[in-house]
């Protein structure tokens, strides 16, 4: 029931938004819908932490899905709230008008719905449809500002992800085929598919998983299929960037993980793990170097997302403690990256540019955002007391015995990322701006969400609440 | 009683005889240069005259300038008491360590250099700068030369060390000779002798020690001059009694001590003569050639330690 509410709320909100004639009701609707989703997710969470599973029929959640759902709902709520303040500022500056605001909210709701449904559905094909739907709903959000570069980003996003997802679709079909060659396969659920995995044709499953990994990996932003990601993240409105990084990537990764469970049942863990380690390491390495010479802060954060997806993938590749840490890392990363994108949005509103060298002295110009940006940077690069430090160490710990070389390389790449990141953040936060803007924050609504997320991040980085630990442990158990 | 006597000698011998050592060196130098030269006792008269004079102190100078002469004199006397002058039997476990002696003298140099800067004149500062250059570089050679002996004598206590070197077989003396050469260079550097410094000069460009004490007069100048004489005799005594420890008394018997005192005076005379000879035959080095010489002294000592095996 809660899941139904969860998936239908944004749909209804989207339809209702279509009918709205003023900005204020749109905003109220967005916030209300977000709160309702939070409530529904909380209900689901309670049951999942108690029974390990929630829902029946077409919509169901296990603890693995719950982890991803948590990120989607948290980031979604924060982004909805932040959008209100952000769009108000843009309207005030005359960048957009009512029509666009309305379009934004409708698409935002649809985007959220697609992600929520994708996480909750029990059918792999429906999940595929949901992920494809996220592509479709966000394409216009990425091209929101109608500038040539935004168009370019959106087109690349659309085409590359469509191709990727078609390959993923092909992989899904291959899984079905491996499950029941030549037979009818009507409405296959994840469970049904996984149940018969022991009898699967091994080589077929390998090819299938390859296609899944390439396909959904495109959406997850694994190198070398990540190419759309920095473009899309940097051109989308900041709350959408936060959602893309903090929620969408996780949803796509969830698909890979669900197939990994099945592939592991059919093949044993080694095959999928080696692939994940390979893509994980590459996805850390390439962004690490690009971050060092980045000139645009939103792209910087986007590459950081690629890198973190790499870390998470590496964690799943190592398995065991690595899986646990990767799931935890996923939550931490979602929160931290949203914080950064929200701060980036505030900087963009203030300075009117996403170039790092146009932004300076943020600590003076934006007293709160400057601090949030600095602290968010510390969080994302894994500096204690933020939890990402621990999860990164856990992931490396998980791999040290079996893959020492990978661990050493990853460790130094992480240090390199820190070095690259620090130079730019220091320039933005402390340095001097070429044209110093007026001092002061612009809208409390653009401040509250990042600060709240940061506080949450800090809290669960220091103290891991038992229910959360329970889901993650159970989810890690599923993944092994 | 005997111990008291020897301790008195330890404390008083150096200050008492040091003007003489300087005078003797000057006299020998004059003779070598075919000059009559002043009496060897002339330095005593100079000191007495200075002590009788009034004093002028720069307005810019602080208490550092005023205290330094006293401190310097104290340190040279204390260091003199820490080295074996007549008897090895007199153990001095409190201050008789060679590092203590080296660093006590360094403390003096430190304050003298500060005093050179203190008056705010242009010469004093340059004198200090050069003094610290020479002192810093001489320290390595000095410590290593003494370490050579310490390794041979298996102790860094100077009294025990003198005894230990004296009882070494003659075949083991090669490192001692090498180390002595290193030590002698350090001696010249530390006491402001040719080719490092010209103790008789008052030409600004060549001064080191004299530049630093340019502003002193009266009793403080007397103390400073006396202190540097002390230092000269102190190094002479170190060279004479550590590298050539024969003739030192093995006990505190009066006769032995008297003999040892005589032998010591003889050895000191020889060393003073060596210094005088050197000063008459070589020219003063350019300041940037001095480090080469000091590093050579350092390396000679290293070779000496290598020879110990």
């Amino acid at each position: 029931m809660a899941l139904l509410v969860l998936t239908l709320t944004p749909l209804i909100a989207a339809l209702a938004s279509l009918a709205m004639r003023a900005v204020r009701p749109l905003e109220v609707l967005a916030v209300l819908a977000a709160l309702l989703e939070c409530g529904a997710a909380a209900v689901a969470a309670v049951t999942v932490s108690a029974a390990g599973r929630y829902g029946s029929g077409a919509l169901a959640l296990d603890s693995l899905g719950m982890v991803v759902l948590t990120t989607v709902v948290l980031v979604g709520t924060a982004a909805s709230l932040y959008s209100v303040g952000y769009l108000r500022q843009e309207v005030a500056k005359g960048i957009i008008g009512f029509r666009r605001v309305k379009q934004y909210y409708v698409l935002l709701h649809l985007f959220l719905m697609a992600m929520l449904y994708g996480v909750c559905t029990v059918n792999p094909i429906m999940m595929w449809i949901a992920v494809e739907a996220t592509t479709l709903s966000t394409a216009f959000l990425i091209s929101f500002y109608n500038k040539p570069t935004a168009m370019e980003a959106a087109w690349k996003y659309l085409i590359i992800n469509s191709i990727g997802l078609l390959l993923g679709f092909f992989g899904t079909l291959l899984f079905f085929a491996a499950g029941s060659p030549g037979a009818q396969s009507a409405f296959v659920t994840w469970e049904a598919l996984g149940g018969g995995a022991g009898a699967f044709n091994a080589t077929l499953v390998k090819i299938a998983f390859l296609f899944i990994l390439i396909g959904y990996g495109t959406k997850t932003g694994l190198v070398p299929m990540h190419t759309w990601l920095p473009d899309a993240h940097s051109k989308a409105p900041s709350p959408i960037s936060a959602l893309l990084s903090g929620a969408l990537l996780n949803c796509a990764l969830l698909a890979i993980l669900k197939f990994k469970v099945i592939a592991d049942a059919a093949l044993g863990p080694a095959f999928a793990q080696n692939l994940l380690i390979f893509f994980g390491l590459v996805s850390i390495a390439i962004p690490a170097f690009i971050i060092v010479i980045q000139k645009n802060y939103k792209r910087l954060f986007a590459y950081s997302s690629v890198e973190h997806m790499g870390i998470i993938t590496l964690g799943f590749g190592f398995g065991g403690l690595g899986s646990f840490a990767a799931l935890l890392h996923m939550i931490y990363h979602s929160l931290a990256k949203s914080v950064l994108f929200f701060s980036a949005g505030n900087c963009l509103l203030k300075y009117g540019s996403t170039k790092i060298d146009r932004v300076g002295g943020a600590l003076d110009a934006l007293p709160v955002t400057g601090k949030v940006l600095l602290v968010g940077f510390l969080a994302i690069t894994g500096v204690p007391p933020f939890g990402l430090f621990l999860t990164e160490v856990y992931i490396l710990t998980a791999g040290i015995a079996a893959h020492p070389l990978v661990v050493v390389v990853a460790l130094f790449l992480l240090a390199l990322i820190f070095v690259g990141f620090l130079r730019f953040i220091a320039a933005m936060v402390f340095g001097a701006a070429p044209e110093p803007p007026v001092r002061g924050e612009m809208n409390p609504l653009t401040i509250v969400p990042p600060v709240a997320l940061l506080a949450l991040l800090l809290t669960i980085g220091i103290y891991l609440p038992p229910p959360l630990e329970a889901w993650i442990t159970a989810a890690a158990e599923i993944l092994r | 009683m005997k111990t008291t006597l020897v301790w008195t000698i330890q404390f008083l011998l150096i200050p008492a005889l040091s003007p003489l050592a300087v005078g003797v060196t000057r006299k020998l130098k004059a003779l070598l240069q075919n000059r009559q030269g002043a009496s060897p006792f002339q330095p005593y008269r100079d000191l007495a005259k200075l002590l009788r004079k009034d004093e002028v102190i720069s307005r810019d100078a602080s208490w550092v300038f005023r205290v330094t002469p006293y401190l310097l004199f104290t340190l040279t006397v204390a260091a003199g008491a820490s080295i074996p002058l007549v008897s090895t039997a007199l153990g001095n476990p409190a201050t008789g360590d060679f590092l203590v002696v080296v660093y006590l003298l360094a403390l003096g140099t430190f304050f003298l250099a500060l005093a050179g800067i203190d008056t705010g004149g242009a010469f004093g500062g340059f004198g200090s700068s050069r003094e610290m250059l020479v002192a810093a570089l001489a320290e390595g050679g000095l410590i290593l030369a003494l370490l050579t002996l310490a390794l041979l004598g298996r102790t860094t206590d100077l009294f025990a060390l003198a005894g230990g070197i004296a009882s070494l077989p003659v075949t083991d003396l090669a490192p001692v000779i090498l180390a002595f050469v290193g030590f002698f260079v350090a001696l010249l550097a530390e006491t402001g002798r040719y080719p490092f410094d010209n103790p008789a000069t008052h030409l600004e460009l060549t001064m080191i020690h004299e530049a630093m004490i340019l502003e002193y007069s009266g009793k403080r100048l007397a103390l400073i001059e006396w202190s540097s004489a002390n230092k000269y005799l102190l190094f002479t005594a170190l060279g004479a009694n550590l590298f050539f420890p024969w003739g030192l008394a093995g006990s505190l018997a009066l006769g032995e001590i008297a003999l040892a005192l005589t032998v010591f005076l003889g050895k000191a005379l020889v060393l003073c003569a060596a210094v005088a000879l050197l000063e008459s035959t070589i020219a003063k080095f350019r300041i940037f050639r001095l480090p080469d010489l000091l590093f050579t002294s350092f390396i000679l000592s290293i070779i000496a330690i290598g020879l110990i095996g």
Partner: protein
Amino acid sequence: MRPIAPQTLLFLEIAIFSAAVFLHLTKKNSSAVRLYVAQSAAVSFLLMVPAFAEPSALLLTALVATVAVKLLVAPYFFFGLIRRHRLRFSVSTYLNTPVTVLIIAALAAFTQTEAFRPLTQLAAGGDRSLLLSVATIMISLFLIINRKGALSQMLGILSLENGIVSFALFAGLEQSPGLQLGITFNILIWIIIATVFISMIYRQFGSLDVTAMKRLTE
């Protein structure tokens, strides 16, 4: 109704495959769209096989929807685009025709190698058709890479989708009609959005040459 002979199926698959190949070769946008329509028609025929084997209302609805989207809506949008922006010729390719053909041959050969061998056990008799549909997928992918025109890329993606659908049919995988409808709806939305995007690209860049879009390079 009697089952359709394997030869017919193979013929249809060859048609799909050839359409993908000819998409590479054609220079005119209108003929490219026609090739796509032809390919879609062949896929639709394939779809009818199971639909008529066990007819049901929902299944028929799904079929009709698919046919409508692929054979009617898509060409309608595309020809509209071509007419509005006077896009007679598609923008050039990266590789010239001989090299293109060579690579197509290589990709087709690749699908016949050991790498795809495991797939053949999915369909007892139709392994050649199966591999041909895989070849269609690879060639369509290559089409998107080789073409500089936005419209051609779109057609490449749709052709890729056709290849996957035909693969699913040959592998004996059938979806429930509901899913079928969902997928079709998805494709419909996709076509609409992509068409809108192409219009927007044309407005922004004055052509459909995607190589004009290379500002985001950091």
